[in-house]
């Protein structure tokens, strides 16, 4: 789960990690008032669920409150497109107004999960700032990594090792040691899958400050952090993705016109791969879960049909233990409720396949059944083309 920069900074501040003075605002007038409170000169930062804002104009310095107002007015309601958002961008609904800081040096600092060693990993670099990924790719020796032993946890000496590797000395180095230990404490307490400070700066006056912050929570741990539900900003998510999440369905909107419903993420990805191979364009990724139920299947189908780009639906359920007649009932229920006359291809495997197929064929829906993944994908692409040709001919006649 993603949260905004200002929320991450509030959490970190609670762990004695120093952050710039700042306030969040939801209107341009508020931005202006907050700017006045900060003495006029301030940084105006768009709050979206993606990085790379700086280069996209999402972070700007204002020299007086009126200018902050102007900048905010332009940012609000704008869709910010960064390398991490996709081409459609993300709407700016909240803005963080912060004091400006006299930056001495910039560093990169994070705690993340290292899959290879199956441990949390402390990462730091003296080459912090907006180009950190290029640094990682071109000169990996400038990135320092320390694996954290789950028995001992992160120890002061390790934090000191990293602080010195970053070139910090004396009092600032010891401040950094404390900051790193606090980050780790936060990571465990809050079940973070990522805490990233980029940049961490040493100000010209010699103080450490987290100028930007990003926190991701482990989705699997949400059951023990009820407070996180209120932190979610739904304006940053696709409406259909929100309704899907309510039913525990993984849904991602894509650009094509063939709605897809599959059980299991791996099979769902493979299904999209086959559709593309056969000349189709998937409208979404949708995983109903390994052991889909009738209710979930019906709900997933409704969500797919709510997307107006969808012109055909491909269902691929490899249930195995699940009964196909039950899945078929779920599909029929949702399709009939939504008065769906779009072409549908259903590929099912599991028990009671014949009964499931019979139900679908007698349903009166525009549906075909398939036995294999490949022929299912071919069928839906053909049906879609046929529907398009029919529509064109209909128009000519009309």
């Amino acid at each position, binding site marked *: 789960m993603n949260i905004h920069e200002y929320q991450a900074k509030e959490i970190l501040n609670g762990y004695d990690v120093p952050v710039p003075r700042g306030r969040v605002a939801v209107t341009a007038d508020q931005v202006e008032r907050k700017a006045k409170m900060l003495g006029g000169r301030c940084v105006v930062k768009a709050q979206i669920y993606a*990085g790379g804002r700086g280069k996209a104009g999402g972070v700007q310095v204002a020299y007086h409150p009126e200018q902050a107002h102007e900048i905010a007015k332009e940012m609000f309601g704008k869709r910010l497109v960064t390398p*991490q958002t*996709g081409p459609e961008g993300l709407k700016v609904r909240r803005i963080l107004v912060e004091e400006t800081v006299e930056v001495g040096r910039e560093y*990169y600092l*994070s705690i*993340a*999960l*290292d*899959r*290879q060693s*199956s*441990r949390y*990993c402390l*990462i730091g670099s003296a080459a912090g700032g907006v180009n*950190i*990924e290029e640094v*990682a*790719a071109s000169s*990996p020796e400038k990135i320092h*990594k320390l694996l954290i032993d*789950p028995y001992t946890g992160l120890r002061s000496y390790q934090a000191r090792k990293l602080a010195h590797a970053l070139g910090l000395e004396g009092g600032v180095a010891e401040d950094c040691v404390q900051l790193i230990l606090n980050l780790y404490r936060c990571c*465990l307490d809050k*079940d973070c*899958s*990522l805490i*990233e400070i*980029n940049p961490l700066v040493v100000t010209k006056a010699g103080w450490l400050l987290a100028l930007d912050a*990003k926190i*991701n929570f*482990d989705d*699997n*741990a949400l059951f*023990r952090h009820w407070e996180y539900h209120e932190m979610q900003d739904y304006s940053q998510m696709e409406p259909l993705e929100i309704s899907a999440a309510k039913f525990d369905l993984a849904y*991602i909107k894509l650009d094509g016109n063939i709605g897809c419903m*599959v059980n*299991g*993420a*791996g*099979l769902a*990805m*493979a*299904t*999209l*791969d*086959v559709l*593309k*191979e056969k000349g189709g364009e*998937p409208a979404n*990724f949708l995983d109903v879960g*390994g*052991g889909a139920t009738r209710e979930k299947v019906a709900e997933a189908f409704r969500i797919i049909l709510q997307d107006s780009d969808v012109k055909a639906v491909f269902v691929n359920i*490899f*249930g*195995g*233990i699940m009964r196909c007649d039950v899945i078929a009932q779920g599909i029929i229920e949702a399709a009939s409720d939504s008065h769906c006359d779009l072409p549908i291809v259903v590929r099912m*495997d*599991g028990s009671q396949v014949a009964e499931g197929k019979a139900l679908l064929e007698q349903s009166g829906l525009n549906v075909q059944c398939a036995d*294999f*993944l*490949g022929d299912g994908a071919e069928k839906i692409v053909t049906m879609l083309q046929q529907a398009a040709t029919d529509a064109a001919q209909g128009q000519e006649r009309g």
Partner: protein
Amino acid sequence: MAILINQETRVIVQGITGKTGLFHTRECRAYGTRIVGGVTPGKGGIHVEGIPVFDTMEEAVRVTGGTVSMIFVPPPGAADAVLEACDAGVELVVCITEGVPVKDMVLARQVVADSKTLLIGPNCPGLITPGQCKIGIMPGYIHKPGKIGVVSRSGTLTYEAVKQLTDAGLGQSTCVGIGGDPIIGMKFIDVLERFNADPDTEGVLMIGEIGGSAEEEAAAWIQQNMKKPVAAFIAGVTAPPGKRMGHAGAIISGGKGRAEDKIAALTQCGVCVASSPTRMGVAMLEALGRA
């Protein structure tokens, strides 16, 4: 011979009295698996389906002589169940539970790694030696005894792969679903090592997907050590470069994780990579030189 489990394997089910645990206990037993006991704290002393239930793993192991545990305990207690099974000294723990917090698994995996117990999962379909023993939630009927080892990060995509093998006339020695979570017990290489040493396995089909670098690591290992033909499929070739987790993901993986990278790495190391998910069975035949 197969790997890890066979018809002699004695299985204890942790979370046996829950709805899912009980359902799959029945399914596994119907397949022929020897389920010798179950554990649900607070329900010790009862029997379900004629299977004795215990309060603790220690007692269950002592009384039944079970050597493998299958876990259906819900996420808040799943890591604890893994630790308990490990402490009770079982040889293999298969954790089916989906949604176990990462923090819990980081510690549990380390404890398991330092013991003689092996862990499969969490968030996995389990493993099966066709015709002998099924420990997991996969449909038994798609499998057929034979000589192909299957190892996969995915759940239902593994079923698709197995069905294609069976349809192509290729039976399986053992199929292992290692799970798709960031922190898991046995990884590709741990399973490949065992297939390599198993006289009854002639070739291996490996199913991967985008993200992480486990496939690249496996590719390097295969080139160095594998004596048997390997075919593979990587799901997600057409996945859009979607939601990313800050910079740290990219920095850790060092540019790995995309399907192209994985396919290139595997191909370079002599693995026959299926060009389409409809050709997994065919790719295995090709790797065996029988296409």
